[in-house]
């Protein structure tokens, strides 16, 4: 067994470039803590992120990090897992990256259920382009691109994922580090596609969905209150049907179940694809041409 790891083992020399007070700091420290507590070696962690303020997070985690194009973190992460299933694969991005430009991939990752953890850092705005409305912004939210108020209804990503067959759905709040570490640990250990949506306030552009607002408008569903995260109907109740303490945003593990992973369903061999000897099997390769004789 390797030496006990600490969050410092996942720290990079590059300091984070987020605004002071940004919710994403909470996500970063919780993730490093979770990885350390789970004993994941940095060399065995592949961390893929999209574009936006939140997409910068891959630059701040000491691991094999990949900062790709806007909205495509999930296809990259899915393929990294297929290529080498021995890796711990985590993808991260914002509400725009995941629910706007990358919404298609989000839905298909849910369908496929790869053993990948996806962290959606939701600040209800486009921060890096200076505060336009995002797919989770409230209707009526006034921004530079929606001066007359955002005409779109917000997406409830976890509800969409639940309907599409998501196998692990959780939501955290970046101001609650201990709870977030626990959520991330359970998510990473889940054998399947685990989504952790994190309420991660933008202190610069979103003057509505602030820390204070989230504190007032969120609550934890937990076992103590009789909540059963294996109960899909119950999950629909809190995510879709308004059984949420008078319109509050539910936090915690909202739903989990167990179903076959993508890796299993594509019959991935025991040996990672990265370890196949490409010089072998010339005879077997040559035999394929017999069908063309």
């Amino acid at each position, binding site marked *: 067994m390797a030496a006990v790891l600490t969050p410092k083992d996942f720290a*990079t*020399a*590059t300091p984070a470039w987020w605004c002071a007070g940004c919710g994403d700091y909470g996500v970063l420290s919780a993730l490093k803590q979770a990885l350390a507590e789970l004993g994941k070696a*940095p*060399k*065995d*962690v*592949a961390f*893929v992120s999209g*574009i936006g303020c939140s997409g910068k997070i*891959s*630059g701040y985690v*000491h*691991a*094999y*990090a*990949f*900062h*790709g*194009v806007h*909205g*495509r973190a*999930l*296809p*990259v*992460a*899915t*393929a*990294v897992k*297929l*290529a*080498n299933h*021995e*890796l711990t694969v985590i993808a991260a991005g914002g509400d725009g990256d995941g629910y706007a430009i990358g919404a*298609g*991939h989000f*839905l*298909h990752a849910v369908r496929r259920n790869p053993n990948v953890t996806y962290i959606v850092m939701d600040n209800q705005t486009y921060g890096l382009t200076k505060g336009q409305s995002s797919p989770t912004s409230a209707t009526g939210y006034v921004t530079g691109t929606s001066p007359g108020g955002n005409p779109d209804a917000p997406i409830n990503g976890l509800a969409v994922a639940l309907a599409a067959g998501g196998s692990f759905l959780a939501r955290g709040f970046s101001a609650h580090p201990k709870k977030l570490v626990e959520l991330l640990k359970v998510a990473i250990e889940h054998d399947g596609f685990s989504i952790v949506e994190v309420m991660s306030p933008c202190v610069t552009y979103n003057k509505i969905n602030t820390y204070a607002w989230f504190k007032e408008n969120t609550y934890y569903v937990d076992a103590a209150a009789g909540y059963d995260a294996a109960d899909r109907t119950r999950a629909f109740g809190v995510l879709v049907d308004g059984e949420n303490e008078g319109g509050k945003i539910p936090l915690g593990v909202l739903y989990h179940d167990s179903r076959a992973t993508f890796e299993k369903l*594509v*019959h*991935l*061999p025991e*040996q990672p*694809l*990265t370890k*196949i000897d*490409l*010089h072998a*099997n*010339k005879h*077997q*390769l*040559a035999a*394929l*041409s017999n069908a*063309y*004789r």
Partner: protein
Amino acid sequence: MPQNDIEIMFGGQAGDGSLTTGDLIAGIFKRMGLEVYTYKDFPSRIRGGHTNYVIRAGERRNYGMADAVDGLVAFDLEAVEAHVDELRPGGFVVFDCSSERVPDAIRRPDVTWYDVPLAKIAKEELGLELVRNTISLGVLSKLIGMDPALVRNDVTGVYARKGEKVAALNIRAIEAGEAFVERHFSEWPSGYNLEPREDGERLLMMGNDAIAYGALVGGCRFMAGYPITPATDVLEWMAKHLPKFGGVAVQAEDELAAINMVIGAAFAGVRAMTATSGPGQALMTEAIGLAAVLEIPIVVVECARAGPSTGLPTKTEQSNLNHLIFSGHGEIPRVVLAPGTVEDSFYISARAFDIAEKYQCPVFVLTEQALCQSKATLPPLDVSSVAVDRGKLSTEAVVFGEYRRFAWSEDGVSPRVVPGVEGGMHLAPGSEHDPAGVILEDAANRTRMMDKRMRKLTAMRRDLPKPIVHGDQCADIAIFGYGSNRGPIVEAVDRLAHAGIAVRFFEFRTLWPFPEAEVAAFAAEAKHIFVVENDYSGQLERLIRYVTGPLAHMHLVNKYDGKPFRPIEIIEAVERHALMRGPSDDAPQPQTVRVKR
């Protein structure tokens, strides 16, 4: 002189089985020892719409269609209307006269008509209209003298999968076709002498299968793709065969996902590819820039079809050349390779993975519908000649803090480790970065990193497939071309040579980085230059002109009607410009040359 060379066209409605029968005939010709080329011309729908399938067989390997069709098997009047003009004088038509008649106006007197009530015989004698295709095969094989034992053997082989009863029914259909010919016709098509030859170890393979097979042999173990004509065959082949070799093929939700999956798998250390066509290629463009800037080796097969937009989705064109070479924001090192035959599709596809990994950049394999969905006979493929060179990839632990994923080097290529290797942790960012992968907007670093990536284009030249010069190396007349046009151009060059006109042909196999020195040398002494390509604007011609400067004696021979060239079109272009012949040309006629049509 009897010719051991025949071109048969099957024409009918999509879904009526003419493709199956065409494949059967191609197989029989191949087993008769003949060289075969097939060309599918089908509509973008599953049932209905005119479709035709051309099978050319002969003693020489042509990789293209002949000047004209020898025999048309027409399952309906529409097939006659569409193709009667493509028949050579002296050719023949087998027409299904069960319910339609050919009007006298299009009943050419210079071809022989064999009216056979195929559907009627099928229904009345065999009880199943579906077998009219097989009856037509019996008719055809009798008319042109195909080996009856081989015909029976192949028909049984193909239909055995559907059960003994089906196979037996199809044999009866062959016999019914033969019997009809014997009973009703006294005059058979003349001039065909299909002498059986040695079949040997040869293969009959489609271009797309050769690309997929080459990729597998070249070490590809991951493919992601999205179905699109005419590239889907590659994904289907890989889905069937990759798992046997420990690999995986994924059908993605769209091309954006497919290319990003390929990049993810390659980042993790697997040789990975996708295959697509124009519309998909357009969607992949942004991510291909990412692969180049992250120095991740990927192979992208482009099976070109006629664009823009949906264009002619099942027809051939070469109009995506500019897209492959120039697409994307910013500037990246990239490679564009173009095989000209089915066997070269195999070897170039295999080689693409070595080039990609040695130079850590995107490599395109460019082909077109007329090559990638065509079948051809070829010599056995030499699997053992394919070496796998993974370049600067290492699985050895490196020292964190010393290791630089994007380190400067003479050839622009940096040592590469992948996730799981101790010490190699780094950020791979699409943003500009320093050698360690740290995002950096510094001007000097930017210049240095651009230089590093782009210099690969120089270093890689020694490893790229060389052009092939065909014909008389000293000829005054020079032709440039690539891909599916290799077949008709080589045939035109040979026929011109027989007529005493020396021509040479420069077959590109690498289109980017552009082989400037070779192009300049080839063009230097030429008195007439022809650039043959399937596009409107002369994309290849412009690239050549960029090297040679404007030349009055350079002629663009192009078409963009969705159909491949026939050799005569190239011969006529050469005659028109180089021999100054043609109806509107009042220049003196320098010589009288008869090119064999």
